[in-house]
């Protein structure tokens, strides 16, 4: 082809499959219980593995005696994962894996394993930085602009301490896999956000070429950033299968172990000082923050969030604690940054007696230039949808009775540029269409949007597209993380479909007496653009495919050259409307408004579901969630789902989603949506509670004890 084909998206008003609220294509499989997750795989001869884990936060293994376990009837393989001499840095570390004919036998055998430890000193709590001692490492002071001048010019200064604790992903399907060692090949059914790279991560330790490891995952029961490569258990599961003579092994973490070792969101606390004018203009920011991402430390939220040009001085201290490492979770560091920043700004607004939305809008000059107008629009839109003008009252004016109503605001920003992606589109002589792409559908609707893009481009109904995803034998894609999937896969599918169509035009053109570039694919026909009556049905056109009977074309997307198909920079504003009972400390969500932009929206139904889901997850974290550790024993006290609380169907109030689908956003291409709406909820809820009760509850979650402590002035 002489010229680069035109891959650009069809105009908004001309789209037929894209932009439509199409139901998810794998909905029936999921709603009928017939979708097979990796934890549902039961290949013939399957045996079950359980882990013996370390009960201490910090210890050295001095002896491992597996003798009795190995002699247990029904035990088929034992793999020591932390041999004598291993220094263990967190509770839940895998020490031995046991595979047996049934899970109960494996559990019995694990109980018979005798592990001796030298218990070492530990630190598992970080909220009190003074107690962290040598576990704390300050990053050093960073400065932008002239905060000293800003504080000198300030007419008012507000100060506060805010924080968000370690919180758990709680994927409903725990981390794990089924592995089947087949001599020179390994078959793996993992629970992962990264089908393409899973084999390459297993390969070096198993000393098996990546090409010999076949990965298949059709459904995953939640990931949220915590499920990429296999951990030590992934390798152990494969080795157990080998040791058991090639019997397939299922190893999924039990809930407790999943809570302990499979990731969490880093904590972040900060003492923040804001200076500003009485008209709401902020002039300076100073923050001293700290937090932990587990044993490796880490977690430094970008402050001040979004308003990053506000002159500032800041320091962040990373604390290493004896827990497993944190993992990405729907906007790493952003939920924390949004909470810290928005809380401090709301406190500043309360101090000068201004409406916080006016203060946010007054300071948008500190936000990235390209997004200032968007935020201004979104603050107004969110305020309108939340009935802010009528319902928002200054602190202390929220009712005389014990039930106080309050409103609070939070905002978000995220990149979301699509990742590298390869898609293959094959058109067969019988008219059937196959789309192959090595991605995965986390429940975000990836299957559905790929099918929509192919149907749109080829001028066919959704039902004409056969899609394969979820194995590493398909064209390699990338991990689903950072809200990068929808941009990547939609762009590569668009390109592959356009490329395949160009070949089909060449095959069909002679029969239509036209040049290939004069043709278009519309409503199941290939027709001449200037004379639409000159047309072939899709089936008839495909019969012209020359010998071999198939056109097969690739579409390649590279993140560094998005080509207008995908973009970056989502923005959103959210408002929480809550009622707080000051006698019981219980916080109830009345209504929640989320205004969100994500560029071109391929499927508004699924986009809305993403926002709703992000908001509900955020409300859950804002109201209930906290990993609780006991410094005395070093153990986590709630590694479960009874005392690690998640919001239920009656806990989340009413939620209003407004997708900011304006033409100027559509022009920016497809932008990821998993992350952005998940940011800002802790901020909005915390601000609403402060507005309702007149004092700041410093730390998430807004549990009754936190609320009552704040009301009693017991903030420590």
């Amino acid at each position, binding site marked *: 082809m002489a010229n680069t084909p035109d891959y650009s998206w069809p105009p908004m008003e001309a789209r037929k499959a894209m932009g439509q609220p199409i*139901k*998810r294509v*794998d*909905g*029936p*499989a*999921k*709603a*009928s*219980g*017939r*979708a097979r*997750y990796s*934890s*549902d795989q*039961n290949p013939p001869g*399957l045996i079950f593995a359980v882990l013996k884990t370390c*009960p201490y936060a910090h210890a050295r293994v*001095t002896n491992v005696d597996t003798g009795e376990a190995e002699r247990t009837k029904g035990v088929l393989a034992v793999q020591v994962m932390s041999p004598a001499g291993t220094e263990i840095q967190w509770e839940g570390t895998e020490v031995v894996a046991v595979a047996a004919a*049934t*899970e*109960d036998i494996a*559990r019995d055998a694990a109980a018979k394993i005798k592990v*001796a*430890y*030298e*218990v*070492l*000193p530990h*630190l598992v709590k970080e909220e009190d930085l003074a107690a962290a001692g040598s576990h704390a490492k300050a990053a050093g002071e960073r400065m932008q602009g002239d905060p000293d001048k800003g504080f000198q010019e300030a007419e008012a200064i507000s100060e506060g301490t805010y924080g968000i604790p370690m919180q758990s*992903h709680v*994927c*409903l*399907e*725990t981390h794990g896999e089924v592995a089947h060692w087949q001599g020179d090949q390994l078959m793996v059914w993992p629970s992962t956000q990264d089908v393409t790279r899973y084999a390459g991560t297993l390969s070096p330790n198993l000393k098996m070429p990546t090409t010999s490891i076949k990965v298949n995952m059709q*459904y*995953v*029961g*939640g*990931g949220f950033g915590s499920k990429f490569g296999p951990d030590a258990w992934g390798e152990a599961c494969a080795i157990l299968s080998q040791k058991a003579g090639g019997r397939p092994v299922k190893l999924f973490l039990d*809930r407790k172990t999943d809570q302990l070792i499979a990731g969490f969101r880093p904590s972040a606390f900060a003492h923040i000082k804001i200076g500003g004018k009485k008209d709401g203009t902020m002039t300076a920011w100073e923050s001293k923050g700290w937090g932990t991402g587990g044993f490796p430390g880490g977690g430094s939220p970008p402050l001040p969030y979004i308003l990053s040009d506000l002159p500032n001085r800041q320091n962040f201290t990373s604390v290493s604690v004896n827990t497993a490492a944190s993992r990405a979770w729907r906007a790493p560091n952003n939920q924390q940054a949004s909470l810290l920043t928005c809380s401090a700004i709301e406190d500043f607004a309360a101090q000068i007696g201004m409406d916080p939305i006016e203060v946010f809008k007054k300071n948008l000059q500190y936000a990235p230039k390209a997004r200032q107008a968007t935020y201004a629009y979104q603050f107004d839109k969110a305020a309108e949808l939340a009935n802010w003008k009528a319902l928002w009252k200054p602190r202390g004016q929220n009712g005389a009775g014990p039930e106080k109503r309050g409103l609070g605001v939070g905002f978000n920003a995220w990149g979301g540029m699509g990742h590298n992606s390869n898609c293959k589109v094959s058109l067969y002589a019988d008219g059937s269409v196959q789309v192959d792409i090595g991605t995965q559908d*986390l*429940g975000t609707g990836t299957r559905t949007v790929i099918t929509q893009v192919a149907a749109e481009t080829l001028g066919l109904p959704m039902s004409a597209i056969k899609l394969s995803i979820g194995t590493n034998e398909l064209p390699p894609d990338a991990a689903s993380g950072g809200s990068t999937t929808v941009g990547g896969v939609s762009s590569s599918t668009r390109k592959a479909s356009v490329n395949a169509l160009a070949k089909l035009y060449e095959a069909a053109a002679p029969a239509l007496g036209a040049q290939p570039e004069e043709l278009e694919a519309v409503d199941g026909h290939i027709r001449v653009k200037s004379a639409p009556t000159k047309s072939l049905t899709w089936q008839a056109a495909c019969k012209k495919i020359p010998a071999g009977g198939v056109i097969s074309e690739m579409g390649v997307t590279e993140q560094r050259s998005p080509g207008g198909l995908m973009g970056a920079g989502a923005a959103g504003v959210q408002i929480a409307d809550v009622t707080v009972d000051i006698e019981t400390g219980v916080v109830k969500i009345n209504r929640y408004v989320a205004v969100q932009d994500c560029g071109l929206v391929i499927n508004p139904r*699924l986009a*809305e*579901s993403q926002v*709703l*889901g*992000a908001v*509900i*997850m955020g409300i859950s974290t804002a109201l209930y969630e906290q990993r609780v550790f006991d410094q005395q024993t070093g153990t986590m006290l709630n590694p*479960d*789902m*009874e005392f690690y609380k*998640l919001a*239920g*169907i*009656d806990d*989340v109030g009413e*939620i209003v989603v407004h997708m900011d689908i304006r033409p100027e956003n559509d022009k920016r291409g497809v932008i990821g949506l998993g992350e952005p709406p998940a940011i800002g909820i802790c901020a909005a809820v915390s601000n609403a509670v402060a507005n309702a009760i007149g004092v700041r509850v410093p730390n998430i979650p807004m549990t009754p004890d936190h609320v009552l402590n704040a009301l009693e002035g017991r903030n420590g």
Partner: protein
Amino acid sequence: MSSNKHSELPEERKTGFSRRGFIRGVGIGGGALGTGLLERAATAAPGQANIVGPGPVPITLDINGKSVNLTVEPRVTLLDAMRDRLDLTGAKRVCDRGVCGSCTVIMNGKTVYACNVLAIDAQGKKIETIEGLAAPGQLHPVSAAFWENDAQQCGYCTPGFVMAAKGFLDENPNPTMEQVKHGLGGNLCRCGTYMGVRQAVLEAAKGIKQGGKNG
């Protein structure tokens, strides 16, 4: 934070309560722990304990109208028996402690958490799982309403929610929104599909009344 040597577990943890250990100790009567069974267990006259196990015992289950024979240890839950032995994987094991509802099935017309019922105690009872709601390729009206209202993302909680919704609608054919929010409170979703679930259950109720069959 002192450093000392321990062999195996500290003493207090050796005696730590575990559900499986407890159920094993109680034997067949342990089924009384099952959520939804507590009320009936309280009213039933305490009979002579039928001692079985601890080795595998043959049992017969009535699942989705079919009688199936299998051999399981008395401590095996209905959930694990279904998932590991019968390849009925619609019910999911999530919390494994009767909290989240992902393993919800209907037993003698009542919704129960299958992780809190022993397989041997499920004998003689009519068990309905999501696999029995509709033939492959077809959708039960409740499942269809879940699809229609996008009451699913990752979908791992969905089968449990569908069964809980079916059981709820069997008893409350004309629910209000408030009743739906209360009635489905025994199931948890992590992706945040509750708005869709609320609408789906209300819509399923309407659909069933208009001729769709909830059975």
